[in-house]
């Protein structure tokens, strides 16, 4: 047989698709089931272990960390168009990313961040769940870091101004720290400026 046909009942064993189906849809014996259960349970535990992945970016003179679960993608900067009748200071406008049109936020204004002399390498960081996406222009993206949650410094006392209120803690990055942002709070504040 050169080609698998769809004739009724012609389930040739050579048909790789059928073989695959048989493999995937076979009944599990108790041992396999127990093993699978254990594996699924185990993986779950791994997720629970306290490690944090964060995207480190710079806005103005401040290094910030977004929880990677919250901030997924980084894009080239796009044109932001101002929104008529909407005057929230942090609303930069709307931008198009991957064929989607999302609001863009100026975190420097929301968090009172000061400008920095370091020349920017601007990028757009896309944050938020699918129905609450925001594009946040940043001056530099350093990359992802994985840090045990226990290493997150609790006191954000050294963090200045209103950034303080939106920070969960400080992420140690060698000789400096990045402020780990409170994703939910930031998102609520951003969304609040849309109406």
């Amino acid at each position, binding site marked *: 047989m050169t080609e698998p046909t769809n004739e009724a009942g012609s389930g040739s064993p050579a048909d790789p698709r059928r073989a695959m189906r048989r493999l995937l849809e076979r009944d599990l014996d108790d041992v396999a089931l127990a093993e699978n259960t254990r594996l699924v349970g185990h993986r779950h535990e791994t997720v629970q272990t306290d490690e944090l992945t964060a995207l480190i970016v710079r806005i103005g003179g401040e290094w910030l960390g977004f929880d990677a679960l919250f901030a997924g993608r980084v894009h080239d900067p796009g044109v932001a168009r101002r929104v008529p009748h909407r005057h929230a200071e942090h609303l930069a406008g709307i931008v198009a990313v991957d064929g989607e*049109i999302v*609001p863009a936020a100026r975190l420097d204004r929301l968090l009172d961040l000061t400008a920095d002399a370091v020349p920017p390498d601007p990028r757009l960081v896309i944050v938020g769940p699918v129905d609450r996406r925001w594009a946040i222009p940043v001056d530099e993206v350093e990359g992802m870091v994985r840090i045990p949650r226990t290493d997150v410094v609790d006191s954000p006392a050294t963090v200045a101004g209103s950034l303080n209120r939106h920070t969960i803690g400080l992420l140690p990055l060698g000789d400096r720290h990045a402020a780990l942002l409170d994703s939910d709070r930031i998102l609520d504040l951003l969304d609040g400026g849309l109406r």
Partner: protein
Amino acid sequence: MSDLGGFSMFDLFREEAETHCASLEVGLLQLESDPGDSNVAIEPLMRAAHSVKGAARIIGLDVAVGLAHAMEDVFVAVQGGDEALSAGRVDQLLAGTDLLRGLASIEESAIEPWSAENESAINALVDSLGKPADAVVDAAPTQPPASGPVEVTTSPEPSEVAKASISPDSPETAKASISPDSPETPRSSETPAATVPDEPPAPNAVSGSPVEESRTVRVDSGRLERMMRLAGEVMVTSRRFLGVREQVVGLDRRLESMEDGVGAAFRDAGDPLPKLRRDVDEGRRAVSELVEELDGLLRRTEEISADLYGQVLGSRMRPFEDGGHGFPRMIRDLARTLGKKVRFEVRGGRTRVDREILTALEAPLTHVLRNAVDHGIEVPDVRRSAGKDESASLVLEARHQGGMLLVKVRDDGGGIDPEALRRRIVERGMVDQAMAERLDGPELHDFLFLPGFSTASSVTEVSGRGVGLDVVQSMVHEVGGAVRVESTPGVGTTFELQLPVTRSVVRAALVEVDGEPFAMPLARLDRVLRVPASEVTTVEGRRQFSHEDGMIGMIRLSTLLELTGSEDDPEVESVVVVGDASGRYGLVVDRFLGEQDLVVRRLDDRFGRIPHVASVAMLDDGSPLFIIDVEDVLKSIHQLLGDGRLRGTGRAKTTSESEKVTRVLVVEDSMTVREVERQILTQMGLHVDVAVDGVDGWNALQSGSYDLVVTDVDMPRMNGIEFVTTLRADERFKRIPVVVVSYKDREADRLAGMHAGADAYLTKGSFREGSFVETVRDLLGIDA
């Protein structure tokens, strides 16, 4: 049950049965209304029944085999001339079709309960189909088990995919046709044979894809949406090749100058450098070839991506006749039940309509058509004595007009009696006698669209379905359309639904305001003009220019949009002329950028409603822009001009108000009610501004400070509940007292109003009772 290439056998049966049931129904109805050459017409029906039988046999659905077989036998008898197709017989055959269709619409797991439930009905039907034709009593039709696909919720997980396979017409999914042939290929439902495969599928052919599958597939609408977005992205990305090409060409130029340099050096030195020269030559040739190849690729990519884009967009468009397959059947059954004779006709069936609109149209049209048969069309006796043809004419017509889709439902029935309607309005306590007498034409007909309003003297089984014309209106409003009624007593009634052809693509003029591009749908623009400053005159602080037959007042678009805009008056103003029945205006923009087809995107819900903005879109370079809602802009202009807030293109500041006036905003779409409210409030010494719907009201709120808001509930664009909710959500308006005045007097409506944040909920009868005045006094703290 065994499976085939990922499809269960039942799925295949389902696909097949659905298609054949549709052919059966169309064919039966046609045969009944026009027997013509019944030998030819019966052929496809026979094959359809035969195919269903074959498909059912394969999966061992004996009930369906028996039924389809009995139906086939009848068709054979008719074709052989042994029997003539009577109306009673057609009823039976339609009932059989319904049963088969019902079976095809359930989940595989529900077959057994379904069979048990319907067994006796099927057996009875098979029995009577088996009886000779003359035994068939020409009775009223047996109640069909269900019209259209039966919604079955046996699936324990309400996953979207599962739902999609059960009820293909649910809003989550939509029928879309990815047609291998051009979308223009006519496919008429008037020739039922066209939907039946040429060869009756032999039982073993069922295992392959049914023939229909290659013509029409169902695609999840969300997936189609994503495909469209990606197709757009492909197009934008392909244009980036242009940049690469430019770079390569630049490289070639550099090589060219290098070559010149080498040539010069060669001459100067007199030293032959043949190898170097050859190398450079070769390099340039290679680059030229590359550029050529790149050009070819570029052209091809652009063509393909534009085509892909067009195809994906086109897949949203369906011929009008694709919607409402159930209409002929519904009308036939209804007319038979009511003892009326109706000739139903669909005109403009090929008119292409966005499937979103088509889906949205189904329910309102069903209602309007039922309404026409039930209330509009008279029984044959009455028609005869009125000198009309016994059979009434009911026409459903679709066509494009002025960039809109116009759908008309026209009957030649008794029409709407204005006196009866006035009486009814007064009876219901909606307005008093004096006001009712002043109501005329459209104002009067507007009452038909109020919830629970019916002029039918008795609630028949047909009309008493809890769906009123108010639902029709709100459904049409939802997709951005409008509905009107025209009626002449004794002559007939026409319902006219005006809808956008698509909500997907709009041809727009691009303008720049304050450095930002904006799109204005061309269909809504009168003219685009460049007006020299010397032609602009100023009257009472308002700038205007003369054009054709009159003066056109100028308003800066930037002012309306609350953008800064250019404050200079340039040598030549760029003006977009827009207008409606009440006037034309010149919107001043900074400059024109051109014209473009834009794919309309929904604005992120989180923005709520932004005044003057209809939606968003993306330009060719992938940057976003807003599409202006011209209708809304016009409303704002009326508002602003009426209040004198827009003197001098919006830049002149209003003088400070020294006297304290209590200002009331009345938001109401009925002119009559609006006028009554305005009069009452003015008599109370209040300053009254009016707005015609929620959006209008919302815009008015932005520019005036009000002490009280009075609003209706049922209004186009933004209804009263949305309006009050929006108002309450805004810090600035939180504390303004709001009175809702509505015809809706059920407790649930009152609760909805209060829940939204209204301070009082009154019915329109309250004008007479004086409770309106009392409530306003209370809320404003005025002594009686």
